[in-house]
């Protein structure tokens, strides 16, 4: 035994075996205890409950859903809500972040000060508190009868109403997808070294844009519901506001929270990126006769983004996880529907499994995709000089 312990290899093997046995032991113990508890409470384990009807409705949904639908559909509703909020929130946080980063790096000291105040206030207060505050603010607005109006929109305690199109949801989704694909296509053409050097690069970009506009117009026309005006304008009828698109305060407070809190973090990351771009780069661009806007959009911004993209990716994943705050204001995101389902169906372990698996898949997909982008555009070799 003593000689066995003296051998390094044997020791390593033993240690790992013990470690593995301990982990398997803990998992097995949890499994045994779990199945005993489940049996004691008379719950049948398994995933059959997913096909049962839920019996309750939810507030915010992107697809048709009612109490007669199954738990599987409810979870899909939550999943789509999370993706929708996450996507819009990240885009909004990016816009805020870029603007604040520009303020922080501007020539004018007053603008610097504004940026600094913004960052120090909003980064030092927990996001959950900010979301609850915005929610309280939005629900304390005047009722629909005295709603704030402007640009064809209404802002009231029941929600914000903006003009929309009378187009069925499927066709609206398709046209959004076309528009997104077109933007990605144009960006790819501009980013790709091979394509952007072609003389016809500009022509290709215009062709994509034109094609996309036609395709979107055609889809919208096809999806237009007969007998209604194309534009759906919100208007006050009786005690409530009808037509238009209603943005519920639950969604809007989360979106504002993500934009403001996430924006403060993203601003600091982008600012670090701006500072890492050597002065020589901007001066060289200036001396080549580029306008200030060109220096910014063609030299400083692309170099800055490339320098900080890995950090930005982490921030995006973090922001995406922050959508789980939906439960504090009653937005039915993925976490909220799982939590409600646990209460209603009682299948705690299965539902938590779905929740964790869902987040692992979504977050790793975001990180994977963005890391591929990073690999594709990262500065290599001689481009790194400052």
């Amino acid at each position: 035994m003593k000689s066995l312990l003296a051998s390094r290899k044997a020791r390593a093997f033993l240690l790992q075996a013990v470690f593995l046995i301990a982990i398997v032991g803990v998992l097995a113990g949890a499994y045994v205890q779990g199945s005993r508890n489940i049996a004691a409470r008379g719950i049948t384990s398994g995933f059959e409950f997913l096909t049962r009807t839920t019996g309750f409705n939810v507030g915010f949904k992107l697809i048709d859903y009612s109490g007669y639908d199954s738990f599987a559909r409810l979870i899909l509703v939550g999943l789509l809500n999370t993706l929708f909020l996450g996507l819009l929130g990240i885009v909004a946080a990016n816009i805020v972040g870029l603007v604040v980063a520009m303020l922080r790096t501007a020539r004018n000291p007053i603008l610097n000060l504004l940026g600094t105040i913004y960052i120090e206030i909003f980064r030092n207060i927990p996001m959950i508190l900010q979301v609850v505050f915005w929610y309280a603010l939005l629900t304390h607005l005047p009722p629909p009868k005295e709603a704030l109006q402007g640009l064809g929109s209404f802002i009231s305690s029941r929600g914000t109403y903006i003009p929309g199109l009378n187009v069925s949801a499927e066709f609206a989704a398709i046209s959004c997808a076309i528009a997104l694909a077109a933007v990605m296509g144009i960006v790819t053409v501009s980013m790709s070294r091979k394509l952007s050097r072609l003389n016809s690069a500009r022509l290709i970009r215009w062709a994509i844009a034109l094609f996309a506009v036609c395709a979107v117009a055609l889809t919208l026309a096809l999806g237009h519901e007969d007998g209604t005006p194309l534009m759906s304008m919100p208007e006050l009828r009786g005690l409530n506001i009808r037509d238009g698109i209603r943005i519920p305060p639950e969604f809007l407070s989360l979106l504002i929270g993500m934009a403001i809190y996430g924006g403060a973090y993203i601003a600091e990351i982008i600012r670090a990126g701006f500072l890492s771009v050597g002065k020589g780069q901007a001066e060289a661009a200036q001396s080549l006769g580029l306008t200030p806007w060109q220096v910014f959009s063609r030299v400083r911004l692309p170099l800055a983004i490339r320098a900080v993209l890995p950090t930005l990716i982490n921030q995006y994943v973090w922001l995406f996880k922050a959508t789980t705050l939906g439960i504090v204001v009653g937005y039915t995101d993925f976490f909220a529907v799982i939590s409600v389902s646990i209460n209603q169906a009682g299948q705690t372990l299965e539902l938590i499994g779905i929740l964790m698996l869902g987040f692992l898949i979504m977050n790793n997909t975001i990180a994977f995709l963005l890391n591929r982008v990073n690999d594709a555009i990262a500065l290599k070799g001689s481009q790194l000089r400052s």
Partner: protein
Amino acid sequence: MSVDTLSPLPGRKQSLLSRLFSRPLDVVISVTVLLFAASVLWQLSKWAIIDAVWTSPDATSEVCRGVSGACWAVIDVRWRLIVFGLFPYEEQWRSSLACIVMVIVAILSCVPMFWTAIRLSALWIVGFSIFYALMAGGVLGLTPIAPDKWGGLTLTVFIYAAGMLIGMPMAIALALMRRATLPVIARTTGIIIDSVRSLPLITILFTAALVLPFVLPEWLLGDKIWRVILGFALFFAAYEAENIRSGIQALPSGQEEAARALGLTYWQRTSRIILPQALRNALPPTINQFVISFKETSLIVIIGFFDVMASGKAAYGSGEWSFAWVEVYVFVALIYFIFVFSLSRYGAYLERRLRVGQH
């Protein structure tokens, strides 16, 4: 990266005035922004100070009727609820003393005299024990108070301090295990760390509070608050382990090789050579992680704890003061701001201090 050698503004030495008004465009921007800021500041101070009501003599909301400014009287009347939660009234001195002890511990650990592993851990363990004894009671003739009565700011401080105290050793262990030469241990730890990092904190707290009772035997269950603290510590440890690991990887390999050549054992190498330097390398992201974790304690409100945010909500939510929600949220935000801002300022100071002599 040569970030710190570059000045973000061209011509730092120019006087402020000439930078404010150097070009016509700058003049326009400066004047507009200054005017706008002045008007916002005026409105704000009018609301928060000039027109505000500070106290309520009869502890009702009557004094705030028809007042255009802030009604700080709500804080005057309800601050005990916000700070102490449902802690029994006559024992609230214990709660405040406990909070003060923890703040003193936090301030002391910023003093360089305490910057050795033994002193720092001793300080925190002693401080935390005093805190716990004061809160829970049952010793020295203090009446016992169950954790479900704890609330408000003290609960936030308690969960944070306990989480960090458990999380830091856990983080070091996880970082070392992930760096281990034994593949099974390194891989498994890697999977655990990466999985925890890609889950939202709230799902982990939720699991700790509601799912663990399903899979743990009765004798291992403990109180809900300790399970939540363990979940919180695990989440912190997963992030902090990666900071420490990058601190270790930033060390020149010569350090480890030299220690090995001197015949030091693994534990000697780790505790005398590697960790002291690695932790120093990892200090800036560690402070950042501490700051983020303090803000994240606020999530416990979702799984039903009565922390400072929930007690704030309760302070205005009871009909009479329901109009004063802005004042209450501003007060709670201010509490968080003071804690988080001072911590992050201290972190920035440390970072500057550590950079001295490293170039």
